[in-house]
């Protein structure tokens, strides 16, 4: 009797509770992220509070909001952790996996500022004075991240900073959450590719200076330990044209090399060339990962460094990319401007093939404004356009006689020659004079003279209106030209080109200059000397005094004619030189087309920045770069007046072909350093971070 009433009572109570709740759940229904319920289902639901959250549903909310790691539940065990991680979208088929990595390589070598005797917790230490080390942004080394990692993927390495085991890391983000100094970052490959150097990054001066923002210390370290493949992959996170850059880059990074303060800088670019050549010589292309497809279609106009870089990064971010190029083969100015002896075209082809292999379509021999226009691209479903048309239009002197036969302009000459050499070697060779003068002091001028020497010109002279010190060309190029027997006439301003009755060029008249008083910028301005007119006899003249973008396409397209703003140098104007968006929102530009003639590596950096902007533009996100963006500036604390403890170690010299051998042919003049030399040179690197460096190396 008693038990019957008990059963009846319980049934009644259960029925009442159940009915009330089910009715209430209908009446009080509010939408919430369905993942919360699923995640909560995987927790132990014991509401023990052991996780530090107010119960299982609070923990589930925190997990879904990304505030708690999947391993939050201390009762449920590893299986639940895996399930929760699964719910949180770490399915490899639909999303990129997140990986944790440490951004500080300082560790123990960063000097201590305070004596700290508290508990071994970064969190506690950070609360006091922000940490005990001199470095404001560096790792504290107590391993809160290690304790937070439920997957045993992080260890404090031998140098006092965390090392992530990528095989074990699931990207749960627990380490990133607990790190008080934001050392640990959880990023997908795409997020890493999109990152721009910032003022609060832990990066060495070389990396700050590199226009492509390559993680230089990392790849040098990888070279040092023999991980050449790792080094190539590191470079490829920022620069797809490592073979080309390794040959032609004037390496502004080396100017800021910390070893260079006391000693000769590390030969960074030669190391890049070494690992790049190493990959090519093994014949095996390293795999390059690409994000899952986004379904967006993009047009890249121009197959030069900027366009290739932009296309490469957009492709890796998962977009469909087509490169439209006016020339028969990819490479732009580095194929048709830089001569064969500096960058063999076989090497370039290997490099551009590798980029196309990612799944990029290449449409050669089509020029914007001639074969298609922006309107036709948009009509065929492209979501955005990158204009990387370069700067192919030579400036002219504006003096009498410039158009006589035998007068050429720099880019025009180099391109004509390159096309003949590469595409039509059986045709008649372009005209080459016996006594040649090249006007200008930039790389184009040097490329012209060195090409002329190789083609058998008897006498080749550079005429430049300032002195050697002011020449904008790369120092190594000038030196090589000197070795190859080029005459230099400095402080000479051309005034007139002389010709014969048949319209052929016969001489160049120039005015001698002298250096006057320093101007506002502190440089001594060349001023002409009255009555110093001099004539040199020539039969060929090349003017290489600079170049700008050729924007003829603008007249052909109504859409562009009205809206695409240009600067007064005919470059494509963008409101923000980091974001690189033109006055037409879906058109972006970069490289020489946006800045005027500049370095290859700058174009590569611009290509990546434009790719970043386009990626965000397509996702309807803000493309404005973060206010902390470094953009080639240096972080003041990282630039030292002096560097203590440096032992002088000679820099590895670049091997070259002997002069008499190289001037007879277009065989590559600069050679790659040997493996031993690469290991020696990489061991000269101080492995700098923001303010600390490896004193053992010094």
């Amino acid at each position: 009797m008693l038990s019957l009433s008990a059963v009846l009572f319980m049934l009644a109570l259960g029925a009442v509770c159940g009915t009330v709740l089910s009715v209430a759940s209908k009446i009080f229904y509010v939408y919430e992220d369905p993942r919360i319920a699923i995640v909560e289902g995987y927790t132990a639901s014991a509401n023990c509070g052991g996780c530090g959250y107010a119960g299982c549903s609070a923990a589930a909310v925190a997990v879904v909001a990304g505030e708690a790691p999947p391993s939050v539940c201390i009762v449920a065990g590893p299986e639940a952790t895996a399930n929760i991680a699964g719910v949180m979208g770490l399915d490899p088929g639909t999303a990129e996996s997140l990986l944790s990595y440490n951004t500080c390589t300082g560790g123990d070598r960063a000097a201590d500022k305070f004596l700290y005797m508290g508990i071994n917790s970064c969190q506690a230490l950070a609360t006091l004075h922000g940490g005990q080390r001199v470095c404001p942004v560096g790792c504290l080394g107590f391993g809160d991240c290690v304790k937070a990692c439920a997957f045993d993927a992080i260890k404090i390495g031998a140098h006092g900073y965390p090392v992530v085991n990528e095989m074990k890391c699931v990207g749960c983000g627990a380490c990133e959450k607990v790190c008080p100094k934001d050392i640990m970052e959880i990023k997908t490959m795409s997020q890493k590719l999109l990152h721009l150097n910032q003022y609060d990054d832990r990066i060495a001066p070389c990396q700050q200076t590199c226009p492509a923002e390559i993680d230089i210390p990392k790849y040098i370290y990888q070279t040092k330990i023999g991980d050449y493949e790792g080094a190539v992959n590191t470079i490829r996170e920022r620069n797809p044209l490592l073979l080309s850059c390794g040959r032609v880059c004037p390496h502004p990074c080396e100017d800021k090399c910390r070893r260079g303060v006391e000693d000769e800088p590390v030969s960074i670019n030669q190391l890049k060339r070494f690992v790049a050549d190493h990959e090519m010589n093994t014949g095996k292309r390293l795999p390059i990962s690409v994000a899952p497809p986004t379904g967006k279609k993009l047009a890249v106009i121009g197959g030069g460094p900027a366009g290739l870089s932009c296309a490469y990064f957009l492709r890796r971010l998962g977009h469909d990319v087509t490169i439209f190029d006016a020339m028969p083969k990819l490479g732009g100015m580095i194929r048709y401007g830089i001569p064969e002896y500096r960058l063999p075209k076989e090497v370039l082809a290997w490099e551009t093939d590798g980029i196309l292999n990612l799944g990029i379509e290449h449409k050669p021999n089509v020029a914007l404004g001639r074969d298609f226009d922006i309107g036709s691209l948009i009509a065929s479903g492209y979501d955005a356009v990158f204009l990387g048309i370069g700067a192919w239009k030579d400036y002219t002197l504006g003096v009498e006689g410039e158009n006589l036969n035998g007068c050429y302009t720099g880019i025009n000459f180099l391109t004509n020659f390159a096309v003949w050499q590469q595409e039509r070697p059986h045709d008649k060779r372009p005209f080459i004079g016996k006594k040649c003068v090249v006007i200008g002091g930039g790389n184009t001028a040097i490329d012209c003279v060195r090409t002329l020497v190789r083609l058998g010109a008897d006498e080749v002279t550079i005429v430049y209106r300032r002195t050697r010190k002011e020449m904008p060309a790369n120092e190594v190029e000038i030196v090589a030209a000197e070795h190859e027997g080029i005459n230099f006439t400095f402080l000479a301003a051309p005034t007139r080109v002389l010709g014969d009755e048949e319209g052929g060029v016969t001489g160049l008249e120039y005015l001698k200059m002298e250096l006057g008083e320093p101007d506002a910028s502190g440089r001594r301005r060349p001023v002409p000397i009255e009555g110093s007119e001099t004539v040199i006899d020539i039969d060929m003249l090349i003017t290489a005094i600079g170049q700008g973008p050729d924007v003829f396409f603008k007249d052909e397209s109504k859409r562009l004619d009205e809206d695409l703003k240009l600067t007064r140098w005919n470059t494509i104007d963008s409101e923000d030189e980091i974001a690189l968006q033109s006055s037409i929102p879906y058109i972006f530009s970069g490289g020489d087309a946006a800045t005027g003639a500049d370095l290859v590596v700058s174009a590569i950096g611009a290509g990546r920045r434009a790719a970043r902007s386009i990626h965000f533009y397509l996702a309807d996100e803000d493309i404005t770069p973060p206010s902390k963006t470094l953009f080639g500036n240096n972080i003041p604390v990282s630039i030292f007046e002096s560097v203590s403890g440096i032992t002088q170690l000679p820099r590895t010299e670049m091997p070259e072909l002997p002069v008499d051998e190289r001037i007879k042919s277009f065989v590559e003049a600069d050679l790659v350093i040997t493996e031993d030399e690469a290991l020696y040179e990489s061991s000269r690197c101080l492995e700098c971070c923001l303010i600390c460096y490896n004193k053992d190396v010094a």
Partner: protein
Amino acid sequence: MAKTLTQEFTKGLWEEIAPFRLVLGLCPVLGVTTTIENGIGMGLATTFVLVFSNILVASLRNIIPSKVRIACFIIIIATFVVVTELLMQAFTYTLFLKLGVFIPLIVVNCIVLGRAEAFASKNSLTFSIADGLGIGIGFTLSLAALGAVRELFGANNLTIWTTPTSIIGIQEVFGTNFEPFTFMVQAPGAFVCLGLMLCLMNLVGSK
């Protein structure tokens, strides 16, 4: 991954000994451990509920829909708690009175629900029994150990079991002149004592 039956049993005794390793189920740990006897009694009651709820959950694990499983587990546990209450009233009434509110509170002990959810609902019957027994005995041992320390210093006694006629255990361990350190059997002593024992466990465990 697969553990043997013995391993499932023994893990509860040290590796995953609930109050110390997981810091779970603390209320009874602190509340009743004034004597060893209370600790053992509470531990055994919990073990009883743990084992039987594990048995029921493990045998019904394929029937209970996962959406309402937590509610089902709670009802199952509550049922066994009621059974325990009734049994204790019948057979060990004085102990039942001493443990007071903590017996019904087994129903909200996170260890019991935690094991049902984390283990019994995923493992076979025999393994669940081994797990329940292991965790329960580990829990009992923890309670007894804490009770022993507290009773020894707080009351100068070590009482293992009281029958209506006699007491099994040692009275006045340190002799009659020992002034009991009553702080230990009172509430603050419970916290401090458990905290220090945890510290000891960490010391031993870290080696």
